[in-house]
Structures are given as C-alpha cells and as structure tokens.
C-alpha cells in the first residue's frame, strides 16, 4: 500500500471521521451562537446600564465599548474569545469580575449532579412503570401506567416545582433551598435535601418518555422467536423477563436516556430558578439578559461538548448492551 493510499485510509477511517465531525460541529455551534448574540438588539452596555445607557455621553459610550471589547470588528471579537476559550479561562464575566472558567467550575457540577439525579430517578421510574404496563397490554394496569406517562408529559415542570415548593413550605415549613446552596462534598445530607425535589421534578419529566419507550420496546421484543423458545424450554419467567426481554429492549431505552440526559444539562433553567440552584442554566440565562457575550458563548460550548460526550458514551453503552454492534 502506497503512502498516499495509507494516508487517505487513515483519514477516512471511522474514528478520524468522527473526531472531524465533532470539531466541525463545535466550530459551527461557536459561529452560530456568536452571530445570534450579535444580531439580537442590545449589547453589553445596554445589558449592564439598562435605561441609564441613555444618559451616557458619546465619550462614555466609546470608553465602555473598549471596556467590553465590542469596539473591535466581529472577526476580531470572535478570535479574541476563541483564544480565551481554548486557553482555558473562557473569557471574563464583567458583572462578577471573575473568569468564566471559575464561574463554570462552580455551576457545572451543580447541573451535572441535578441531571444525574433526575436521570437516575427518571430511568428507574420509567423502566418500572413501562415494564409494569407492558406485562398485560390493554389491561387496567397498562392504562394506569400510560396515564402516569401522559400526566408526567403534560404537567409542566414549573407547575410541579411550584406546587411542591408551596406545599412543603406552607404545610411542613420545609424548604431547604431557602438556605445557601451546599455542595455535595461540603455537607452531603443538606445537599441531598436541596437536590431531592428538583431531581424528582426532572426525574418525572424523564420518566415519561423512558416509560413509553420501555413499554413499546418490551412489547416488540416479547413476540420475538427467541423469547417464545425460552418460554417453551421452561426458562424461569423472571429470567425471561430480565435476561431475554428487557436486555434485548435496552437499545432504544439507552438512546432515550442519553437524549434526555443531554436535554437536562441544558434545559433545567426553570427548575434551577425555582429551587434556587446556582447551576449552568441560571448562569446562561443571566448572561443572556445582560448580553455578556463571552459567558453565553463559553457556556453554550460547554453544553455542546457535554452533549457530544454523552452521545459518545451512549455509543459505548450500545456496544456493551448489544455485542453485535462491535462488529
């Protein structure tokens, strides 16, 4: 094989193509977010000064443009931010006076912990109810399971969160999120109390699609030949249920769980707000309202990297769940 052929084979191999597509995706996202933020009206000065921007003199505006780095051309602004991002400090938050990397280092663990708790609770509830439902399709238990799925989908997170907060505070004088947020390694018991209800709200939201996916995957698998054969051979029904049916239904469940976990990382803003959790959702929302461009851009890039990482992990889990995929 010639050198040229070997090079093109390496370049066209799956891992290289995969890595290439990841970097292309991240670059595309960085450009998209950068441009969207510049297209929407308002800038960092309006975000910081509000209506008082109107009383600033042209000289003051010019000085503030230099301060916020928005006096430069768009390509220069992009390159300046990208350089900061790649060197690890991710830029500078003007409202807090500290680096975005420091802010993210504090906010990201909160969001990841919340998303993990939500996903674990959601998967446990979803698989349990889905299995419960699929055992006797068309029965009352199936109806009850599907009703749970429908309600979990239909009730908005903010309604559920507010209801929980109000009932717990008014009836039981209990709202641990009213205290300052405590990290897992500082006080695990208090942290669990602060994460329990928001995790449950997110878990219920995850449980609905996982339950529906589990139910339909199980119903599809249960009619397969190998299941009938196992039952015919007299294999223990519990073993058939777990080893043959559930194991072979896991691929769509894993896919759905991966997607939901990714959404939770970027979409827990409302729950973070109601339960006063200082996570990434709040960081991005606050930065958008203040037009802190670097904070929004860097945070979105972190989300994008995480989302891609979750996809890769999901692919690896596929291989574990279904050995045929390795081939």
């Amino acid at each position, binding site marked *: 094989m010639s050198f040229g052929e070997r090079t093109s084979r390496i370049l066209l191999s799956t891992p290289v193509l995969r890595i290439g597509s990841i970097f292309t995706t991240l670059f595309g996202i960085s450009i998209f977010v950068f441009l969207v933020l510049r297209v*929407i*009206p*308002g*800038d960092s000065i*309006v*975000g*910081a*000064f*509000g*209506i*008082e*921007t*109107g*009383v*600033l*003199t042209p*000289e*003051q505006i010019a*000085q*503030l443009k230099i301060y916020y780095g928005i006096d430069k051309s768009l390509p220069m602004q992009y390159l300046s931010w990208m350089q900061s991002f790649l060197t690890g400090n991710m830029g500078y*938050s003007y*409202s*807090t*006076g*500290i680096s975005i990397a420091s*802010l993210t280092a504090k*906010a990201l663990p909160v969001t990841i912990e919340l998303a993990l708790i939500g996903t674990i609770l959601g998967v446990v509830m979803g698989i349990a109810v889905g299995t419960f439902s699929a055992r006797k399709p068309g029965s009352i238990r199936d109806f009850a399971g599907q009703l749970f799925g429908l309600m979990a989908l239909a009730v908005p997170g903010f309604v559920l969160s*507010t209801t929980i*907060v*109000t009932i*717990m*505070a*008014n009836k*039981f*004088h*209990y*709202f*641990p*999120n*009213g*205290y*300052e*947020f405590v990290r897992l390694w500082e006080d695990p*018991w*208090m942290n669990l*109390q602060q994460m329990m209800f928001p995790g449950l709200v997110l878990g219920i939201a995850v449980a609905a699609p996982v339950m529906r996916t589990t139910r339909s995957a199980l119903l599809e698998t249960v009619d397969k030949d190998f299941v009938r054969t196992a039952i015919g051979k007299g294999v223990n029904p519990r073993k058939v249920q777990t080893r043959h049916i559930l194991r072979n239904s896991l691929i769509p469940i894993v896919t759905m769980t991966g997607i939901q976990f990714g959404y939770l990382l970027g979409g827990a803003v409302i729950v973070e*707000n*109601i*339960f*006063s959790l*200082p996570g990434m959702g*709040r*960081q991005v929302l*606050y930065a*958008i*309202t*203040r*037009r802190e461009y670097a904070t929004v851009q860097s945070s979105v890039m972190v989300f994008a990297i995480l989302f891609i990482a979750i996809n890769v992990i999901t692919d690896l889990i596929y291989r574990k769940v279904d050995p045929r995929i390795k081939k």
Partner: protein
Amino acid sequence: MVAGVAFVAPAQAASKDLAIGVTLDIDKLDPHTATSFSTVRMLGLTYGSLVEVGPKLDIRSGLAASWGFNADSTELRLKLRKGVKFHDGSAFDAEDVKASINRVLDTKTTAAARANIATITSVTGSGLSVLIKLSVPNAPILAALDGVNMSMLSSDDIAANKIGKTVNGTGPFKFVSWEPGQSVKLEKNATYWKAPVKLDTVTFRIIPTEASILAALNAGTIQFSVLTSPTVALQVGKNLNLYRTPGLGYVTLQLNARVAPLNKLDVRLAIQCAINRAEVVKTAASGEAKVVGPITSPAYASDPNDRPCPNVDLAKTKKYLADAGYADGLTIKAIVSPTQYATASGTAQNLKAQLAKAGINLELDILDNATYVSRWLAGDFAAAVANNGGRIDPDTMYTRYFPSTGNLNKVAGYSSATMDALFLKGKATGRAAERKVVYKQISQELENNAVWIWLFAPYEYRAAAKNVTGFIPLATGSLIELRVVDLK
C-alpha cells in the same frame, strides 16, 4: 410537620443574622455606576450620601449635618457631620466629598448620576466645610445629592483606583463577601455614625423566583424579603408582616408624538379617553397600586383627575378619532417586555382590550428586556408600556425626558417651548410654594397634550418574619432602615 422534624436544618446561630431573599444578584461593587435595583439596594447599606430621603420623602441630613443656598441658588454650602469614619477607620472630610463629586462628574467614570449634578462647576472646602458652585440657579441639586449613585467614597481609595474592587463606605454595614449567583454577606459597622446597629450580619440570598422567596419565608429559612409581584404579595399570610408602600415609580403607556399617527394630538387624546386606569390596576396589579398622574412625589403629586379625560369617555374618543381622520379606527404598535416587571404583561393585555373597544388596535411587540431597552433608548417605537423610576424631586424625575435638551428626550417623544421654559423656571425657583405652582403647570401640560398616558404607581413590598422588628419602609425602595431593625 413530620417531614419538617425528620429533616435537619442548620442550627440557628445565637447572633442576630438576618437573611434577605432577593430575586436578582448584584452586578458590581462601584456605587457610582450601579444601576440595577439589587446592586443599589445592597450598596445602600454599605455607603452613605450627603443627604438622605426620609420616610415622608423629606430631605434629611446624612453625611452633611446642615446646608444652605445663597440668594440665587447658585452656591450650596455644606457642613459635614463630625466623627464619621469609613469602614477602614479613616476619617470622612471635605477631601472625600471633593474627590467623590469630581469622580461622578468625570465622564471616564460613566457615573449614573452625572446628568443630575452636571450643573456643578466646582467643589471646594477643607475640614468639615464644603462649597459647591453651580453654573445656573439649581435648588433641586440638594435632592440630587441623595442615593447610592452619589455615595461618598474615600479620597484615598479613589486615588488608589480601589473603587469597585473593595467596598469601603460609611454605611451601617460592612461588606464581607460576594458569592456570585448565591449570596452577598455584610456585617455590622460598630462605628456607624447614627444609632448603634442591632443586627450582627445581613445576608442577601439570591432566590430567583418570588414564589420561592415566599416559600423560604414561610419555612423560616429567610427572615426578610423584597417582593414586587402583587400576586405573590397577596399570598403573604398572617404569619408574616407585609409592608406595602406606594412607590415613586410609575407604569405608563409612553406615546411617541414624533411618529404618525401619534403626532396628532387628537389621536393621543383619543387613547387617553379610552383607558380606564382603575380597570388596569384591578386587572394587571390585582388592585394593588395607586392611580397617578405624571408627578408621584407626595410633595408635588399630580391630581390624577386633572386631565382632559379623567374617566373613560368613548364618545369623546370617537370624536377625537374622527377629527384626526381615523373614524374607522387605527392600529398602533406598542413594545412591551414581560420580564421587566411583574405587571407588564397584564398591563399591556388590559390596555389592548380596552383600546379595542374604542376601535384602536394596540399591536403588542413582546421583547426581552435588553431588546426592549435598546429600542426604547433609540426611540424606535410608536408606543411603549413602561415602568419608569421616580424621584422625590420632579426636576430630577423628568428633566432628562421632557425639556428638548434632556438626554432622554428622544425616548420621551415630545418637547415644546412651553415645557422648556417651565423646567427652567422650576430649576431656578427655590421656594417650595412657587415650585409647586410650576410643577402643577408642567403636569397639566403633559396631561393636556396626552404626552404619555400615566396609569398607576405600583406598591413596594417588603415581607418579614414576625421576629423582625423596627423596619421602616421607604418609597424610594432603599433598605437603609435595616440599620434600626432588630431580631427578637
């Protein structure tokens, strides 16, 4: 109750620690450039100004013990309070006043209050005496010396470029720490110049939704809160104290009289006659607001009924529309930002419903806050549903809007020679009785020309646990009276 007992909450310390729930974090530590309510509120506890606004909206002595104008109100002489110290222990004197006012006037500072004191030409003095010279007669300058944006800073800190990096004020509380997105901690200033401060610490805890703040109050995890939503305030139970104060700010339908068809007086008057303000208050603010005219400060308050249409008069609306050539009705676009304040959406929707009855289609352009502010500042709107801040002096409240030279005149969308003359007269008049006459004329000029449609003044709410005693609410929104609060 079982759940409440089963879960262990952090033990209450013996010291007097007050936790305050607020929805927004602070965004800077420089009092001269602070503009967000949350930052102004917090820094107001750590810094002091030359004068203060009291509960009855009267001007009181602050770091200045006494003052006096010369005959034509072009010189203001101040006697500073004796024995005042900054948190770092250094003494407060005339040098600090000079450095602070000059810092506000310096365009490089981008100070929020610069426009209010732009008539100051020089600040001189030594020891505890200060002389402020003005370019024109300007009695309202005294009111402009109040507030966080006019905080007195240490001249040494200014020289060392420490402002915004550290907090070294003369206020009742010392700054301890700021955890962005979570909390700001303050502690008692044992050498505060006024009565001894009773609270040991004050912590501002960021809880982004007001419903959750109320939950935290009910659960006892915080003891004090700042609320803006009438809906949430109405849910405050008897287990808490609710302080309800009519604010100086006001909600209005701004009309841009430089844009057709609102450049026709008849169209603007038609809108004024079609709006029942009490209904807006009932619908948008659950009845929790006061119908007002242009000037909200009690000393100069406009009579809300002193206008061409004090009540809804659809017959007049139709006549005005016909006279303007819009007998078949017309469409007006209005910008609104629902995230800006609690009653924004309700106000806009109710105005739309009321105007529809008169054949006026109010088309709502719903925007996020920064987009709204950006278009508002550019005057890029026909109408705007706005919640504007108020001041205790009508000159500082409106001089940036309605005189043709005002730096927000583009936003006001209206100016006239009469208005210019009245504002100049108001500025130059020192006697309270004469000033009242001038500002009544200004109020009438604004209402008779339906420049904007002034709707209501929302209440300022503070909710506190029963063991929080002695708090005095202020219409300015300041929390400075936490200096006299005790925890029983």
